[in-house]
């Protein structure tokens, strides 16, 4: 178990990290980034898995099952839509036809 003060330091440092990595983001990436961070909190699925893993009564199992399902939906859905959005961002400096990466993007 994590000691209270250590946890407080972890909370603080993680909060600063989250703040710092977003602080200078261009507006064009706000939507994918929100969607991407939405994916990252899909990690909640792991916590729900542990809770379901130690569940014994039927009620606990039902709640745990729902919890894992919701978490998995969050993670998978968040990943798919973020990937789809980021796939579309292209620079005009990359030749539109030519590079294999560019072609893949245009193919849709």
């Amino acid at each position, binding site marked *: 178990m994590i000691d209270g003060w250590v946890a407080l330091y972890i909370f603080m440092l993680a909060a600063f990290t989250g*703040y710092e990595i977003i602080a200078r983001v261009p507006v064009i990436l706000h939507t994918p980034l*929100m969607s991407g961070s939405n994916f990252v909190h899909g990690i909640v699925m792991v916590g729900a898995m542990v809770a379901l893993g130690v569940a014994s009564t039927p009620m606990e199992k039902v709640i745990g099952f729902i919890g894992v399902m919701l978490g998995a939906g969050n993670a998978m*859905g968040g990943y798919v839509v973020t990937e789809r959005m980021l796939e579309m961002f292209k620079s005009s400096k990359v030749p539109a036809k030519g590079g294999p990466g560019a072609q893949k993007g245009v193919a849709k």
Partner: protein
Amino acid sequence: MELLPTNIAMPLIQASYFAAAVLFILGIKRMSSPVTARSGIHWAGVGMLVATIATFLMPGMHNLGLISAAILIPSVLAWWSGKRVAMTDMPQMVALYNGMGGGSAAAIGAMVLSAVVLAAPGSCAPGAETHGHHCLDLTQRILAVVGALIGAISFSGSLIAFAKLQGWMDKTFRFSGQKFFNGLVFLSTAVLGVMIVIEPSMNLIVAFFALALIFGVLMTLPIGGADMPVVISLYNAFTGLAVSFEGYAQGNIALIIAGMVVGAAGTLLTRLMAKAMNRSIANVLFSNFGGPGAGGAQEIAGTQKGIEASDAASLLYMAEKIIVVPGYGMAVAQAQHKMWDLCKQLIERGKDVKFAIHPVAGRMPGHMNVLLAEAGVPYDLIVDMDDANADFPTCDVAIVIGANDVVNPMAKTDPSSPIYGMPILDVSLARQTIVIKRGKGTGFAGVENALFYADNTRMLFADGQAAASSLTSELKALDGGGGH
């Protein structure tokens, strides 16, 4: 059932969670630059996969079949829905997935709290032999309750936001004394939460969750469609915090770190959004802006002057520097592809073409950028508000398509206007403005737009798609003879 002996499994799990946390942070970092963004989501995806697989190895895990089913079923559904959702519908999809995360965090809260109730009497008393997850210390109980509260609000609130954006629900729902009633519900929920921390019981837990879910609904119902970007962003931050707190209650460091990083990033993003609308987050949540009849009906002197597509095309033909200001109306008309076709024609003729985007264009922060990217507009042709405003005075023609409130100069000049103080794109500084608009209606805020009456503004009344394609063909016609 144990897949590995504890002395091997635990370090492996801890190392995997650590790796996941690092990958999440680096992934989000990479997502904050357009060049590396795509790899960012892949990094974070690997982190998620590693953490998920490692969790199966956790000693003392039962119900592994149940767990696998609970992962697979929604994953298939979410993958399928995520692949086929239209880019215009992305905000409600993000709201939906986000709500699911909040619900999951609330479910964890329900389980760790009920485990305390179900534990044998006295087994969690001070000094007694502790039985692992069944016993929570005071801090863990508090955070489990707070996390569950935030998670449940995020869950039901996000579902309402989803229903509103999807068009399933009337945009606003208000009754007199609503704020007082909502406050009362929240207070009752908080009191129940405190009672659970002191002495948990099943009845208390059930009542607490019911009230928390109801509060999420009540809180979101009165918020208008125009404010949804801020609300989605806020609930995203909420879910992050809920995940982090439940992670503490469970002693799971991966949840603590990932949740808190998202919570902080989401809070910052929410504040940026609210700032772009010149409002505080509290103002978004508790005021009635964006609803019907919000604007006083001011009269504007002058008339709107129409223009034909052929004349508009010659204006563009003569121009050197052109700035396109797209709004959500363009996306509704699905005109972004046609608009980009027109701009490609202009670029071919040596014009300097840029897209200027207001921070709240679309239905979530940066939504318009995604819609333009989908149409194939390279991101380096897109400029944000500050850069665009520096460019407008030297701009020959500005094309406004489907945008209204974000280009309304009255936000600067008329203190009685409901949008007064909102930062806008200074389109009125351009030499000529062409506004492509279907009819003479007002924008989201229900306010008249002085830009449409300005001397150097010409209104091209047409559907966005039709207007863009007729401009393109008129432009090509102008080349005839002298051109190449």
